[in-house]
Every structure is written in C-alpha cells, then in structure tokens.
C-alpha cells in the first residue's frame, strides 16, 4: 500500500469530503469523525511518504498510468514531502481543536463546513504534491473556493472582505494561469520537470521572462506579499475561528512553497538568480514588507488583526529568504514554512480559544486573561516566543538561517529588517501579554489584591490538548531543527545553489 | 478560417465587453455579458475548439447569464457606474 501513499493522501480526504456532505443530510454527528479519520489517514500517508522520500529519494507517481509529459504525474521530493507533512498535520490538529468552536459559531451548518474544511485540505495537499503546472491551478481554485466559503461564515463584515479576497485571489490565480500559458506557448509542455528541461535555450526569450514575472505576481497576490497584501487582514480577521486558524497558517505558506517550486524546479535557480538578476530588488521589497507588516501590526488594537499583519511580515521573511539566492537563505525560507505554519497555528488556536470564551479579541477585552485562561495563555506565550525568535522555540532557528543567509549574501538591510521585526514582535506580544497579565486596575493598588479576581474560565479540554500539542511541537521542531535540515531540506535544495 | 469574419467577431467581442461594463442597468450588463460569451463561443468554434465553444455556449452564455440575472434581481438593478 505504501506505493499508493501519494494517491491516498489526496483521495481519502476528497472522498471523505464528499461523504461528509452526504452524511450531513442524514446524520450530522457522523461528519466530524469522518473528517478526523480522513485527515488522520492523510497525515499518516504524508509521514509515510516523507520517510520513503528520505530513504529512496524522489518518488514519481503517474496518475492514470500515463508517462509524465503526457499524463499528470506527482514528483514527490524532499521539499514537497516536508510541506505535505506540515499541511496535513496542521490541518488535523486544528480540526480536532476547533470542533467546539465550529459548533458554537456555525450551528446548523457544521456538516458543509467540515466538508469544505476537508476540501480545502485536499486542495492544499494537491497543490503541494502535484508536478503539473496546470493541475496546480485547478487545485489552487479548490483551495480558494473552499477558503472563500469558510471565511465568509464569520461576522457581519466577513462577506465583504471575503468578496474582496475573491477578486484578488481570482486575479492571482488567473495571472498564474496566464504565466503557465506563456510557458506553454514557448515550450509546449505543462509538466514542471519537462518545462525545466526545455527552457534553457529559451532563457533569453521575453515570453519566458513575462511568464516568470506574471506567475510570480500571481503567487504574490495569493500569498499577500507586501504591496499586494491589502485583502488579507480583513479577510482573516472577520472569519470564523476555525477557518482562520486553518487558512492563516497554511494558505500563505503553501503559496510560498509554490513560489519556491517555481524558482527551484520550473525556472531553475540558474535562470532565477543568475540570468534575471532581480534578486536584489525583491529582497528590498521583502525588507519593505517586513517593515510595513511590523508597523501596521503596531497600530492595531485587536489581537486577531495584529496577528494577520504579522503574517504579512512573515511572508516578507520567506520571500526575502528564498530570494537571497544562497543555500542558507533558501534553507531558512523552507524551514520557516514549517515553523511559521506551526507558530501561526498556535497563535490562531489561542485566538479561537479566546473567542470561544470571550466573544471578542480587542485588546480591552483581554484584561486579566492570564487568570481567566491560564493554560491558553501559556500556549500563547510559547507562540509569542517563537514569533519573536527565542531559542529553543523553532522560530529562532529559521531566523538564524535567514539572517546567516543575509550576511552571506551581503544583504544587510534584510538582516536589519529581520531584527527589527523581532524587536517589534517583542513589543507586540508583550503588549498583549502585559494586558492579559494585569487585572483591570482598581483605584487602590498594592499587595495581595486577589480578592476581586475573576474566576477561571478555561476553554474546554478538547481545545486545550491540541493547542498544547502544537505548543510542544514548536519546541520539539526547534530542538530537532538539525535533523530536519540535514535529512530533508539539505536534499530539497538543488546542488547548484551554494 | 475567414480572417475578415474572425476580425469582425473579435471587434464585436470587445464592444460587448466594454458595453457590459458601461451600461448603468445591471440587468442589461448581464444580457450584454451573455452576448459577449456567445461571441466568444462563435470565435472559438471558428478556431476549431468545438468542445470549448460548446461548453462556453452552455456555461458562459447560458448558466452564467442566468446566474447573473438571478443575482441582479435579488439585489439591486441600478448602478452609478
């Protein structure tokens, strides 16, 4: 059966999403177990696949039994195996953790929500695993459509911000499609590896350049890279907790994966870094993204919205790291995909726990939260440390690689931006922690004023356990960074990048 | 393929596209959009893409227009731009 892992990891969630939407009309209680089982099988297959890839190297899976350039094929290498594991595990944990919150926020529509949730995961996994440029587009659209639907389930303003996301997302996807068309017109192929083989004599062609730029812009639109980020904060802020804690960690990261895949496989590093020579302006753009994300986050007085701006800054990290054009930077970017997915998941799960109990996450609502929800806040601290980049949490190590890469390539501005963003994160998170740490002040202050403390109102255990699994994961991934880098990422980056 | 016909349809396509964006009546825009889709469909069948043309005729000119009409009737019909 292990031969079929690449197919199983997609098919099982897809079929179960369909099954969920059928059972939703018959017996709503069955939906959740089906979803969990499907994602568990998927995660199991992903991990199995990663282990196989580490053992055997690249795995090619021919769908429909057709040879690659004719049919669609998966090329599972170290890079996408790693991202697959991240996506499936994050989705599984979040699903388990947000059952209560889904039931609270969407009474009556849980079944279609679970179906869309699983479809979204299917789409993301498909985007990551596929080796065909056009297939990627179709899966991107599944991801996008299910994402729109889930995001629109939030509060009053959610439909409007989702509609804006839809416009931008569609432009992004269409740009990508257009880029693929440009590649197709000059190469005649849609298979990524095949395109890469045909491209070298065409590197001078303007069409290839245009294809590259238009694909890149499309992907940037979808990942909310700085000047194109306007849709993200509102769309994520007004979304229901379960949706935002799935989409926020994964969608931007998967888009970064797509960008790295374009750089590494389709256009090859040779073309991207040596022939184009546009790395420097893009790294500068990333610097601006980091600065702006940090500054915009500072201006927010709402926990969830603040986190969304941090995502914008983190996207800057990864784009910048990938475009440094050296091994360290690329390692940092790939490692940060893993780390940032976990960090963001942890932070957003905290937000959904808070929303479950408080019905609001403006800063003023958070006073005395450490007493009310000590366990949730404990996890929040871990997430905050990781975002700041304090060892041994994983955020430190990816930042380490990114900064090392910046030093190696002499992009000191990027280093400064990373450090600046770390400092701003300190301010951001400790501002929140401070607000949560102090009780609402009374007039007389002094010692021993625990008599008017509010009673503890912690989120249910079913939300806390997954949260702590993630928080523990942040530290574990940090400790095992060297293994991830040495056994996986090292092989994910072609030898031509030094 | 007669290039004059091709050119004429291409021009019509652009005109209907601009028209559907210009009219102040959303219902009119929906119908013009249907016309646009149908022109496209004609264009593609000239180009030999019969399957695509068929799909566009049923999906683009058919269902899409109906969906537009349904949405416009459910919301408001007038617009300022």
């Amino acid at each position: 059966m292990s031969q079929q892992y690449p197919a199983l990891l997609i098919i099982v969630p897809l079929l179960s999403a369909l099954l969920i939407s059928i059972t939703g009309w018959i017996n709503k209680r069955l939906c959740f177990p089906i979803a969990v089982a499907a994602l568990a099988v998927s995660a199991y297959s992903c991990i199995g696949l990663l282990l196989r890839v580490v053992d055997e190297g690249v795995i090619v899976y021919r769908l429909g039994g057709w040879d690659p350039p004719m049919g669609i094929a998966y090329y599972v290498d170290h890079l996408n195996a790693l991202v697959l594991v991240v996506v499936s595990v994050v989705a599984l944990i979040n699903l388990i953790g947000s059952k209560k919150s889904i039931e609270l926020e969407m009474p009556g529509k849980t079944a279609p929500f679970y179906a869309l949730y699983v479809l979204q995961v299917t789409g993301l996994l498909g985007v990551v695993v596929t080796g065909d440029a056009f297939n990627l587009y179709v899966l991107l659209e599944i991801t996008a459509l299910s994402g729109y639907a889930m995001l629109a389930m939030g509060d009053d303003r959610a439909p409007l911000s989702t509609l804006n996301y839809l416009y931008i997302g569609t432009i992004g996807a269409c740009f990508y499609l257009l880029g693929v068309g440009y590649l197709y017109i000059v190469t005649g192929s849609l298979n990524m590896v095949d395109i890469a083989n045909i491209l070298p004599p065409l590197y001078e062609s303007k069409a290839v350049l245009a294809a590259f730029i238009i694909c890149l812009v499309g992907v940037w639109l979808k990942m909310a890279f700085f000047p194109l980020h306007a849709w993200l904060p509102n769309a994520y802020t007004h979304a229901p907790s379960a949706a935002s804690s799935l989409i926020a960690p994964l969608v931007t990261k998967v888009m970064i994966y797509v960008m790295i895949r374009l750089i590494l496989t389709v256009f090859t590093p040779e073309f991207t870094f040596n022939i184009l020579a546009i790395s420097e302006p893009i790294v500068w753009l990333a610097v601006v993204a980091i600065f702006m994300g940090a500054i915009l986050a500072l201006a927010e007085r709402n926990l969830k919205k603040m986190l969304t701006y941090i995502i914008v800054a983190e996207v800057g990290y990864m784009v910048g790291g990938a475009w440094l054009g050296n091994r360290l930077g690329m390692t940092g970017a790939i490692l940060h995909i893993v780390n940032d997915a976990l960090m963001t998941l942890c932070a957003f799960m905290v937000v959904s726990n808070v929303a479950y109990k408080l019905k609001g996450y403006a800063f003023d609502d958070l006073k005395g939260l450490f007493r009310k929800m000590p366990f949730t806040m404990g996890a929040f601290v871990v997430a905050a440390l990781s975002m700041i980049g304090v060892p041994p949490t994983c955020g430190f190590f990816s930042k380490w690689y990114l900064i090392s890469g910046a030093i190696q390539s002499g992009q000191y501005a990027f280093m400064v931006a990373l450090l600046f963003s770390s400092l701003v994160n300190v301010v951001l998170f400790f501002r929140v922690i401070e607000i949560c740490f102090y009780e609402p002040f009374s007039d007389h202050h002094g010692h021993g004023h625990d008599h008017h403390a509010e009673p503890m109102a912690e989120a249910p255990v079913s939300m806390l356990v997954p949260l702590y699994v993630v928080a523990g994961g942040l530290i574990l991934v940090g400790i095992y960074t060297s293994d991830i880098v040495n056994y996986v990422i090292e092989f994910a980056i072609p030898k031509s990048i030094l | 393929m007669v290039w004059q016909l091709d050119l004429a349809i291409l021009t019509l396509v652009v005109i209907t596209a601009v028209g559907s964006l210009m009219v102040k009546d959303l219902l009119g825009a929906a119908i013009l959009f249907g016309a646009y889709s149908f022109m496209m469909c004609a264009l593609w069948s000239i180009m030999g893409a019969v399957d695509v043309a068929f799909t566009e005729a049923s999906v683009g000119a058919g269902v899409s227009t109906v969906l537009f009409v349904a949405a416009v009737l459910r919301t408001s019909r007038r617009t300022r731009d």
Partner: protein
Amino acid sequence: MKIIGLIIAILTGVLLLSATADFPIFGDPDSPASTHLSPYYIEKTMEDTSVPNIVTAVLADYRGYDTMYETAVIFTAGLACFIILRIFVREEPGDRLYRHVLTGVTVRVKEGAKLPPSDDFERIDTMWTPPDLIIKTVCRLLIPFIQLFGLYVIAHGHHSPGGGFQGGVILGASIILLAISTDLRTAVQRMREKVDAILCPVGVIIYAGTGALCILFGFNFLDYSALAPLLHVDPITARSHGILIVEIGVGIAVMCTMIWIYNILSSGGKYDEGL
C-alpha cells in the same frame, strides 16, 4: 481607485504585449505547442483509448486527474453557495396562497388554518403572477427534448463534441428553465434540495471512486485499464468505458450543482420563492 486600476491594467498589458513579440506566429503548425505534446495525443489517442474525440480522451483519461478536480471545484462552488447564502427559516407566519390546479382559483388560507391534504392544490408565491400560457407550454414541450439532448451529449461525448460537462449543464439548464418558466416551487418539486445536494457529491464520488477502484486492482489511481477484468473487456476498451463512467459522474455532479446554485441564488438562500 480608477486611476490605479488603469495604471495596473496598462502595466500588465504592456508587459504581456512586449512578450508577444517572441511568440510563434498565430496558427503556426511548427510552434512548440503544436509539436511537443499534442502530436502524441492526436496520433495515439485511438490506439490508447479508442476514443475518436481527442479532447474527451485527454480530458477524461490523460488528464483525468485535472478533470476530477474540476468536478470537485464545481461541487465546492455549490457547497460554498449553500453555506454562504442558505438560510433555514421557519415558515413566516401569515396567510398562504394556494391555487387550485384544475380551475386556477387562488385560495388564501388564514394563518394557522390548514388545507386538507390533496393534490389538487399547489402552494404559490406571495408575488405570484400566472405564468404566460405560451411560454409555459413551449417550455413544457421543450424540456424533455432538452433533457434528451443532454443525455445524448453525455453519452456521445466519445464521438462528437460534448461530454459530461456540457451534458450536465444542459440537463441542469432544463430544470432551471422549468424554474424560470413556472416558479421555483414547481422545479423544487421535481428535484428536492436533499436529493439534489446528495446527488451532487455522488457524481464526484462516481468519478473519484472509479479512480480509487483502480487502486484496489493494484493499478495507479485513475488507470482505467485496471477495470478490464471487471468489465470483461480488453484494457483499451476498458479505458473507453472508464471514460464513459466518469463522464456520467461529471454529468450528474454538474447538473445538480447548477440547479443547486441557481435555486439558492434566485431565492436568496431561502429556497422557497424564486425570481
């Protein structure tokens, strides 16, 4: 905003235009697109799948995986419309209108009162206008033929333009036509929401399940030649049959989704009174 839009549009246009200079001439038979992959499809399709319509063969077999997701996209859209718009409201209190089918007499039933169960009366909308007789009659006449044509398009996709999508859309359009020419209630009576919403994923399941079945036979996903022992035919014909099966799945899914989306949109999510 308009100026920004204009600038962005022009910038994109200039970028794309500048690249067209390196394109092959329009319609050039020696362009890379026409010489790299497509000759294989054109020349080998018959051999590999015995389907004369190359588009169908590529769509449902060589790139069948794409098409499966395409169907899933449609299904996702239906689900999305459902979750976004669908409102489950209790019947609003107030008078209801019924029409006696045979005589056309409209009956107003006071709040709380009930009509005896009978097939002679049908519920009508509050803003109900009697459908035009000509339109109604013509549509009644047309709809069976439209449906027949839809089935033909699905079944004959191997040999002529068409296939699951087109056929599915036509089938769906027939029901939509019914909803437009009479009213939504009539259409929903023909196709209940629950049936519709269940058939929708069933269509996709037919597709994905066929693919998964191939795994059970020890072949790769969507490798229809695996079905040969099941269908008692040779592998190449099995591919042809496999294509037909998945096209049927696509047809069902697309038909149901189109109806579903239309009903939800036109009723504003309440699924009771249409346009």
